[in-house]
C-alpha cells in the first residue's frame, strides 16, 4: 500500500481578512484584483527556510535588554508567552518567531515614522526567538503605546505587537499582529476588524495572573495557530 501524500491544510479564508478591505485605505491599490490560482500541495510542502539556535542571540527574546545603552527602556514591562500550534492541534517545535513594535510612547524607531512622540534610547522594539520542543515561546518586552495614523480622521492604531512566523512549511507562513484585551481602540481599527468576527478575537492576547511575575511584569498569553499537515489514515493509525 502506498502511503498517501500528506497535504497542508488549506488557508482557512473564513479566518483571514479579505485582501481588499476598503476601510483599510492602503488595501485598495495594493491587493490583487484577480483570484489566486490554486496550486498543488508540492509547493506548500516545501521546507521552510533553514535556521538554527545559533542564529538567535542570547538577548534576542528580551526587548527590555537587547538594545539597552545606559539603562532600562521606559514603560510597562510585560511578558508575552504562549504556544505555536498547527490547525491539527500539534505543537510547532523549534520554529522562528520575529516581533517588532512601537515603544511605550507609541513611536516606532523606523526612520519613516514621523509621529511626534519620543524615541527611547534604550529600546529598539525588535526581537526574535524559537519555540521549544513543545511549541512554547516567551518574550519580555515593554507594552507598546497606541499611535496615530493617516487612514481616516483621528485614526489611532490599538496597542499591538507585530509577529512573523514560518511554521514548518512554505505555506504555513503567517504575518499577524497581537492585540491587548480591553483596548477601546480595537472596535475602531480597520486592520483588526478586517479579519472576520469570530476570528479576529484570536489575535487578542489574554491577561494571565499565572504568567505574571510578582513584582516584575504582567503576563499575556498569545497562542498562534498555523496551517499544518492534515492527518492521513496512516498517521492516525500510529
Amino acid at each position, binding site marked *: 500500500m502506498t502511503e498517501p501524500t500528506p497535504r497542508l491544510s488549506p488557508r482557512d479564508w473564513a479566518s483571514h*481578512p479579505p485582501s481588499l478591505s476598503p476601510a483599510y485605505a492602503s488595501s485598495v491599490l495594493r491587493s490583487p484584483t484577480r483570484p489566486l490560482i490554486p496550486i498543488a500541495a508540492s509547493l506548500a510542502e516545501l521546507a521552510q527556510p533553514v535556521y538554527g539556535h545559533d542564529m538567535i542571540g542570547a538577548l534576542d527574546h528580551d526587548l527590555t535588554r537587547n538594545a539597552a545603552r545606559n539603562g532600562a527602556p521606559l514603560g510597562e514591562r510585560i511578558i508575552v508567552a504562549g504556544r505555536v500550534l498547527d490547525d491539527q492541534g500539534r505543537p510547532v517545535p523549534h520554529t522562528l518567531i520575529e516581533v517588532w513594535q512601537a515603544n511605550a510612547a507609541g513611536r516606532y524607531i523606523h526612520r*519613516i515614522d514621523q509621529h511626534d512622540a519620543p524615541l527611547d534610547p534604550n529600546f529598539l522594539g525588535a526581537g526574535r526567538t524559537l519555540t521549544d520542543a513543545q511549541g512554547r515561546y516567551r518574550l519580555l518586552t515593554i507594552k507598546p503605546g497606541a499611535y496615530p495614523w493617516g487612514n481616516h480622521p483621528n485614526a489611532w492604531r490599538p496597542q499591538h505587537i507585530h509577529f512573523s512566523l514560518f511554521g514548518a512549511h512554505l505555506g504555513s507562513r503567517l504575518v499577524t499582529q497581537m492585540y491587548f484585551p480591553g483596548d477601546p481602540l480595537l472596535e475602531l481599527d480597520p486592520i483588526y476588524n478586517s479579519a472576520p468576527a469570530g*476570528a479576529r478575537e484570536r489575535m487578542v492576547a489574554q491577561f494571565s495572573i499565572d504568567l505574571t511575575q510578582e513584582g516584575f511584569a504582567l503576563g499575556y498569553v498569545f497562542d498562534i495557530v498555523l496551517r499544518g499537515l492534515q492527518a492521513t489514515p496512516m498517521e492516525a493509525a500510529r
Partner: protein
Amino acid sequence: MKQTPSQTVGPYFAYGLVPSQYGYELNSLWGSDIAEPGCAGVPVTLMGRVFDGQGEAVFDALVEIQQADAQGHHLHSLEQARTTGFRGFGRMGTGSREDRCFVFRTIKPGASADGHAPHLDVILTLRGLLNHLYTRIYFEEDSAQHARDPVLAQVPPERRATLMARPDATGVYRFDIHLQGPEETVFFDV
C-alpha cells in the same frame, strides 16, 4: 483548531525583519545574498520592483525568496548552508534603495525531480496587504521545461509572461511584480 488571522506587515517591519539592510543595530537573519560568492552553480543577479495599482513603485514591501540549489534540491540543514555557501532563502525590503528595487544575488536553481522547471518561490508582504502573497519566478530561457511544468500548466497562457524573469543587456535578470493592472502578476493560493 482555527488558524490565527493574517494581518498586514505594516510600514515599519524593516528594523525587525531586515534590520542590517536598513542600518539598524541588529543583525539580519537573512539578507539578499541567497548564495555566497563561490557557491556551486551559475551566478544570477535578480532585480525588480513592486508596483501598486497606480503604477507607483512600493517602498515598503518585503520580498522573500526561497529556492533549490543548482541540482534542484532544497537546503536541509544550517551545516549544509555553511559548507556550501548556499543559504536557500533571502529577504529584501524595497525601502533600502533609492530606486525602490529589490536585488538578490543567487545561483540559478536546478529543475526539481518532479518536473518543476527552475524557479524561485516568492513570498510578498507589504503595507496595505492583509494576506501575504505567493508567486514564482521562472527564467525565460527555459521554455522547453516550462511546457512541462505542472504549476505553469494551471496558469492561463496569456498570464504566464508575468512569471518570467528576463535578462537585460547587462545580464541582470529583471522581474517586476504588479499588484494590479493589465500586467497583474499571477499569485498562487499555495
